[in-house]
């Protein structure tokens, strides 16, 4: 197997450069800075081929840290996780599987942001908005021969649906941990020293436990820029919006990222008009530009939405004394006052800030960077001097590498692998992301500009192919032909650099691509995989088949 041999060589090369790469990994800025190409090759499926010497070294390092699975060794727990969000939950489950005695400390509610104030309830609202959209789209219904008379909704019913879903998922999470024997400790956790955690009421941590390893998974809270006054009724964050206590006639959404975009989908479906306020020069700045352009055409332009780009909301005053919500806009560059908006409500969706206060990081000489806990590519916490703090890890939003629930969970699993004596580095470029608008947007890996920049730097070529949902039988059957899939790859090696999808069920479709990236599958191999017909997955099938490689002798490809 010529290909795997090549992999193992570069994998060990990667490991030997570990120190240098951890520097790169901590570079702030872009969401996927930590992901370097080499990391893709250290994925579990290929571990068998890694050089035995390297594995032994990793084991030895783990043993030196005193983390040999299964032995208590004088500690209360093998692993204590601070924060029972999706990241902590994923880590806890995997730790139990690895035979570690595990406790999880939660000061609020199990499930964290995702389950209680994020992905989960918002999916409930989006499920409603998707149906409302379909029912209101007369043209669409008619073309399928359906007749519906004036659909309406009951706001409280919608809100209850979201709330019920959150509590259901919350109890599922709690039960799954209890069933596996994870101790759920209630209170706010503080690190008081090496391998020592206190927990209890905020400010009065009265119970102390020791743990061989500690994972910080405290997550994040909505970020509110200064000048914005939150009252929870007319000016609010996603935390309040998800309760859907009101549906304003006109709502300004500050920030046009995932959160803003998803809420615009919900609010416009429920009858609100929306104004986006975006600091950057274009909407949806985090997305691949081509996808963003199409998204604007599909998700913004035909709806009751307008937008202001290149402006900051310098001051937002909640509605009071019979006055509406006032939003002062200043130019993002010149800082000059541009306009004052008067709206019924404002949703602040300007991103999320790490929730790391009160963790006692000062006790172990760790200084946060803009609130984020600095970590290396193995999620090991770095102290102020740039040294690894032994037995302390930080995962999820609190480290800021990639602020997604499933990324936190993957990081947690990676950490548990390490403390179980199996070295593991997570390839962040293989982590998919999705935005659950109608239609959905999903992506994995690099955007086209990122890929081209990297290609320029490293001297390789980049190719892009696209396929349309319009050519897909299933999409046409659903009358949902809007959308494209886009593949960014290296024509010389067939390596998949990024995949972006906008279209029906894009969030479910991305995993074929993200798995391919995670497993290092190349275009020339995956194109032979078979897809059921007629399914939406054929959009990706066509995409892979469309990718042409440069003819080159001796290129490794799957033997046939």
């Amino acid at each position, binding site marked *: 197997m010529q290909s795997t041999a090549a992999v193992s060589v570069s994998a060990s090369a990667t490991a030997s450069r570990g120190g240098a790469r951890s520097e790169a990994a901590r570079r702030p800025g872009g969401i996927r800075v930590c992901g370097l190409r080499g990391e893709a090759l250290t994925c579990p499926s290929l571990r068998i081929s890694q050089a035995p010497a390297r594995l032994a070294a990793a084991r030895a390092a783990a043993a030196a840290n005193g983390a040999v699975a299964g032995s208590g060794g004088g500690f209360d727990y093998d692993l204590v996780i601070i924060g029972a969000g999706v990241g902590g939950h994923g880590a806890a489950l995997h730790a139990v599987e690895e035979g570690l005695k595990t406790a999880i400390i939660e000061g609020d509610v199990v499930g964290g942001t995702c389950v209680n104030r994020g992905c989960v309830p918002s999916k409930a609202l989006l499920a409603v908005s998707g149906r409302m959209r379909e029912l209101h789209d007369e043209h669409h219904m008619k073309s399928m021969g359906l007749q519906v008379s004036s659909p309406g909704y009951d706001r409280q019913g919608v809100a209850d649906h979201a709330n019920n879903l959150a509590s259901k998922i919350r109890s599922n999470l709690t039960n799954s941990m209890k069933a596996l024997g994870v101790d759920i400790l209630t209170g706010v956790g503080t690190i008081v020293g090496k391998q020592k955690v206190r927990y209890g009421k905020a400010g009065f941590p009265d119970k102390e436990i020791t743990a061989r390893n500690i994972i910080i998974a405290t997550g994040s809270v909505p970020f509110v820029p200064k000048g914005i006054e939150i009252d929870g009724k007319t000016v609010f964050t996603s935390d309040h919006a998800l309760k859907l206590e009101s549906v304003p006639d006109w709502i300004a959404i500050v920030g046009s990222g995932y959160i803003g975009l998803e809420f615009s989908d919900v609010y416009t479906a429920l009858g609100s008009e929306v104004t986006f306020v975006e600091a950057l020069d274009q909407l949806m700045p985090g997305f691949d530009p081509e996808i963003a352009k199409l998204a604007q055409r599909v998700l913004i332009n035909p709806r009751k939405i307008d937008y202001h780009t290149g402006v900051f909301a310098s001051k937002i005053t909640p509605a009071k004394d019979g006055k509406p919500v006032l939003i002062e806009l200043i130019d993002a560059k010149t800082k000059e006052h541009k306009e004052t908006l008067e709206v019924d409500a404002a949703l602040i969706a300007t991103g999320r800030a790490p929730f790391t206060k009160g963790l006692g990081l000062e006790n172990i000489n760790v200084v946060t960077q803009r609130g984020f806990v600095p970590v290396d590519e193995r999620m090991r916490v770095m102290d102020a001097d740039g040294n690894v703090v032994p037995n302390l890890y930080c995962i999820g939003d609190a480290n800021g590498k990639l602020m997604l629930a499933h990324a936190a969970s993957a990081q947690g699993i990676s950490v548990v692998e390490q403390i179980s004596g199996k070295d593991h580095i997570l390839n962040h470029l293989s982590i998919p992301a999705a935005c659950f608008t109608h239609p959905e947007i999903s992506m994995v890996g690099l955007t086209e500009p990122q890929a081209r920049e990297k290609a320029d730097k490293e001297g390789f070529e980049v190719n892009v192919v696209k396929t349309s949902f319009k*050519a897909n039988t299933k999409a046409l059957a659903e009358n949902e032909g809007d959308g494209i899939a886009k593949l960014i790859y290296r024509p010389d090696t067939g390596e998949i650099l990024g995949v972006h999808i906008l279209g029906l069920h894009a969030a479910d479709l991305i995993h074929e691509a993200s798995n391919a990236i995670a497993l290092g599958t190349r275009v020339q191999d995956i194109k032979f995989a078979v897809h059921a017909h007629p399914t939406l997955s054929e959009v990706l099938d066509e995409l892979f088949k469309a990718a042409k490689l440069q003819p080159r002798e001796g290129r490794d490809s799957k033997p046939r």
Partner: protein
Amino acid sequence: MVHPSDKLRRFGSRSDGRKRCQVVRTINGDWRHGPTLQWAGRLHLTLWFVSHSHLAPPRRAPDSAAQPAFSSTQRSPERRVISSVIVHQCAMASLISPYLSVPTAPGRARLAAPGAPRRRRMAVVRAKIREIFMPALSSTMTEGKIVSWTAAEGDRVAKGDPVVVVESDKADMDVETFHDGIVAVVLVPAGGTAPVGAPIALLAESEEEVALARARAQALSQGQSKEPSPPHATAAPGPPPPAPVAPQATKGIATPYAKKLAKQHRVDIAGVVGTGPHGRVTAADVEAAAGIKHKQKVAPPPPPPPAAVGPAPPMPVLPPVPGGTVVLFTTMQAAVSRNMVESLRVPTFRVGYSMITDKLDALYEKVKSKGVTKTVLLVKAAAVALTQHPVVNASCRDGKSFSYNNNVNIGVAVALEGGLLTPVLEDADKLDIYLLAQKWRVLLKKARMKQLQPNEYNSGTFTLSNLGMFGVNKFDAILPAGQGAIMAVGASRPTVVADKDGFFSIKSEMLVNVTADHRIIYGADLAAFLQTFAKIVEDPEILTL
């Protein structure tokens, strides 16, 4: 593997040989689309999804006569690889006079020249100034954004030249002109949006007409403008101009949808008085503004409104139903509403008459095979009766005189989806039933397609409304403005009848109810007319003469 059927997909049909082919080039990106265009026979669009994973050249559909023209644009390497979709379009009339439905979209109609859209073309040809319309590039496109004008004002363009790049809800496309000429005026600048069918530029045939076109553009923008001719036979006398609304200073705050609508309907939002919360301009305000404006601009068309009648009191507006849904009137529905309110000014009365239809039914059975419908028979019967009672065919235009009509033109109410039309059978007394039936079929078809010419729906002198096919026993019709009487016909149903000798028998009986303007038609007039009508119905041989 992907099914072969997915490799190549065709939408729409190929046009015949007369039609010129054009390629709509994709501007940025390679997935493009546009099935089922709304060019109503003028433009067919064929779409090829060309497989990129197969090296073989794309198959062509068997019936395609012409070679699909591929874009010759230089593509970047990866574009060349993808080249996923090529939109291929064959057009006879690309831009000029795409088919427009009679004003269902208010903006479109308002922007149109007076008269029905189909007539506009003739008018345009006379002036040698042509309008370039926003084309419908996809089945779901309601408005389009001008990405850029490839031709500037003053440029001479030849047939087939691309003049504008339009961004639809689906794609950016080059749009070509179908006429030689000079781009005289660009009505919607780059970046602007216009509803499908709205003029976006004026094309003059020669230098001299450029100025003319400019003047026209000015007129268009000022009087944006003309009220769409109500597609109803019962065209109202011009509504009295409402008291002009004093423009109040607004803070210029308008909701996103209001802004969109204002742009679409070319309403200057600064001039709109906001009635929303905190004085903001809402979508409803913009719509109202668009409505108010065209009412103000309308010169009262003949017949002039009765001088005696003062301005109608403003309609009371009821509070909205909590939790209900508000659906705005379409233009047609608005016209119906206006005419109905207008009708309240006329003092009307009603006379009913029952008649035996056995013979009429028998006649109908005989002529049915020749395409004659019950309605046509009733129209003919009414027409014959009207010739003997000209006063019922007259109307009162000014409140002090009889206006006798030379022709017997009978409007027949037709329910349409979301509206009501009354196509008119002209000279119904002079034509035989077979000709009438033929004419009626044509009118009905046009009505359903919303293609009726104004004279085909507003020249009626008498109206017939038949709800018999629904089993309605009897009903009451509202008199349309400008006419003297309207006849409401119920179903004919078997009834036990006693004749003068005391014998009972079962006969089909039909109830007819006529509503008339009592200023000119008195009870005895109407009764006499109905008696004649009943005689004809009961002995309908005369109808076949």
